[in-house]
């Protein structure tokens, strides 16, 4: 073993240079050609900057709500609820969310509530909701903002992100983007 230690140290040293220094520098170099120089995609709106991929908390009735979050959308950390499917306490929480949703959206039938809007995401920073989760919020937002439901529905259509190449993956709505669009359409 002694005989092998010295070459191991030297080899580790050169590999550290290659893999810990050269490799990240190449990636960093590539990133300089990427949007926002690789500091994460951002949206500028009214002079303010938002990370388009990092979900934000939206629980105000005038906005499309984002999904529940185990970390309250605090992007300094991340994580899910880690509740098992059979956990009674967890199921009670979901029930409470459904009830609360129905209180805020009295026109919506219970059977229309999509499951994503009452369950927490894995990261706690999910920037998206499902299209149906947007649709069930239309009546509430239209009422508060005093705009036509059809106009909001159009916004939803405009903001629906399609599957990759139209083939792979689900459709979804970026909550931040649609709420920005909502604000730009009708500033409350």
């Amino acid at each position: 073993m002694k005989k092998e230690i010295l070459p191991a140290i030297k080899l580790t040293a050169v590999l550290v240079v290659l893999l810990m220094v050269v490799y990240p520098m190449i990636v960093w170099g590539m990133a300089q050609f990427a949007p926002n120089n690789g500091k994460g995609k951002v949206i500028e709106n009214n002079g303010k900057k938002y990370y388009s991929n990092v979900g934000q908390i939206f629980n105000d009735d005038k906005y499309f709500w984002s999904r529940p979050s185990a970390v309250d959308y605090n992007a300094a950390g991340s994580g899910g609820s880690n509740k098992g499917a059979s956990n009674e306490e967890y199921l009670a929480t979901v029930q409470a969310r459904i009830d609360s949703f129905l209180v805020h959206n009295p026109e919506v039938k219970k059977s229309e509530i999509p499951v994503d809007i009452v369950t927490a995401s894995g990261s706690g920073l999910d920037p998206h909701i499902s299209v149906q989760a947007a649709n069930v919020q239309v009546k509430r937002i239209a009422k508060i903002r005093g705009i036509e439901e059809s106009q909001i529905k159009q916004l939803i259509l405009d903001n629906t992100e399609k599957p990759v190449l139209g083939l792979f993956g689900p459709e979804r709505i970026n909550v931040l983007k649609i709420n920005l669009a909502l604000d730009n359409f009708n500033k409350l």
Partner: protein
Amino acid sequence: MNTEILGIIAMFGITFLLAIPLGKYIAKVYGGEKTFLDPIFIPLEKLFYKISGINPSKEMTWKQHLVALLSINLLWFLMSMAILMNMSWLPLNPDGNPSQSADLAFNTTISFLVNCNLQHYSGETGISYLGQMWLMFLQFVTAGIGMAAAAVVFKAFREKTTTQLGNFYNYFVKSCTRILLPISLIVAAVLVFEGTPMTFNGKDTITNLQGDTVQVSTGPVAAFVPIKHVGTNGGGFFGANGAHPLENPTYLTNMVEMIAQFIIPMAMVFAFGFFIRKRKFGWMIFGVMTIGFWLLAAPNIVMEMNGNPAIANMGIDISQGATEGKEVRIGAAASGFWSIVTTVISTGSINSMHDSSMPLSGMNELIAMMVNAFYGGVGAGILNIFIFIILAVFISGLMVGRTPEFMGKKIEAREMKIAMIIALAHPFLILGGTAIAAAFPSVGSVAISNPGHHGFSQMLYEYTSSAANNGSGFEGLGDNTLFWNISTGIVLLLGRFLPIIGPVAIAGLLAEKKFIPESAGTLKTDTSTFGIMIFAVIAIIAALSFFPALALGPIAEYFSLK
């Protein structure tokens, strides 16, 4: 067809189509044949060897291989402890994160050293960028170690009778430079353009649309994430791992990361076939693994898409499936698919929270790790299935009326002893660890975050993940305690090095034996019949060892979930 299902078909199909040429390439790399990357890497490697004083053409016996392998791992262990316990004052710590405690550093070090990446810390708060970069280095080299060990086994079956099994450093360096590094660079290129950050700035502070101030963690993510997948390491840059929108911002990155982690394990199987010049054998192994994989993956996709019946009973629309712990941009189907890919190949990165999977999905994830040989981790997968092959050869050899032989080598008491120890080690570590945690609630089961059967599953999962060097978790477990850090650390160590030492030793011993030419009475190991036999051995060993534990955990949870 459903775009979520199409996405899965595409991910599997693309991986499969790329794995064959990659397998051929890997076989060439280990065989020292000419490849198109030679002009770049030959001078580079020459320089490396010159500096390190290594003669890459010096042949080693299997024992010398193991000594070299263990020595360099010991070195990395010491370096890693030093770095992780002193991060707070070392450079590249813009967020001012603290150093790790000795037991956490031990756990983290072991965990990354063994290519597992079980994380008892959260990336945003528990480690500096220097620490992350060091872990990234370990993600490269430990994957390289696994591949080098597999290459030794490859070599042992290529030659008729030999003690000379190639040079360890040669296999190891080539694995890093010619296989892991180029693929990682390709993946990184996609990630940076899809929005994965690559910056050395610390946390950013923004005011959100509702007016609250929040901090956003970023960092050199786009360098870290590719090798985490390519090397089937799986440790997340962020706590939420592949579910985090900065690690895995779009469905496209999800596809790319999926292919990145899946491709080398699959390609290694083909590489084995190409390298030993028995392609059909490679295909047979691939067939066994693929059937096993889909038997686990297909139910998970279905169960996750069908959603939680307890929530369905509340009367809402669960057509999106079991969305708890899942991201909308990825969807239930791709999450279910990923949950099995990541557990069969020991990546352990997650794009949904396994703790919140449906009970039997959780069971399949556990089984995937208990078997740990359907594709398996880079290099490690070949080593693991090799043990099952030896056992299958032994029993089926007898069944055709010959003393058992594999690739022209007789399997005798010594090989059986090693194979049995390795096969035993896995249930021993998993069940033993879980039993201790269950027996001492004050240090063990106190950590669980769910009551009842699911709580039991959380403990079982943690040790299964450790023994399988997987790294995923039922993350609700509050596992950053002295007991969990040390106990899983030990399980991790044994779960890594026993399955490396064992197969390399068996292969080395077999390589030394006299070669027996094939006759009509010889059991052909490249047939579908033998494939069934391997599958039966895997199923029986996994089922028999773990059935009681599974019955008390996920199965009981499944039957009680109405």
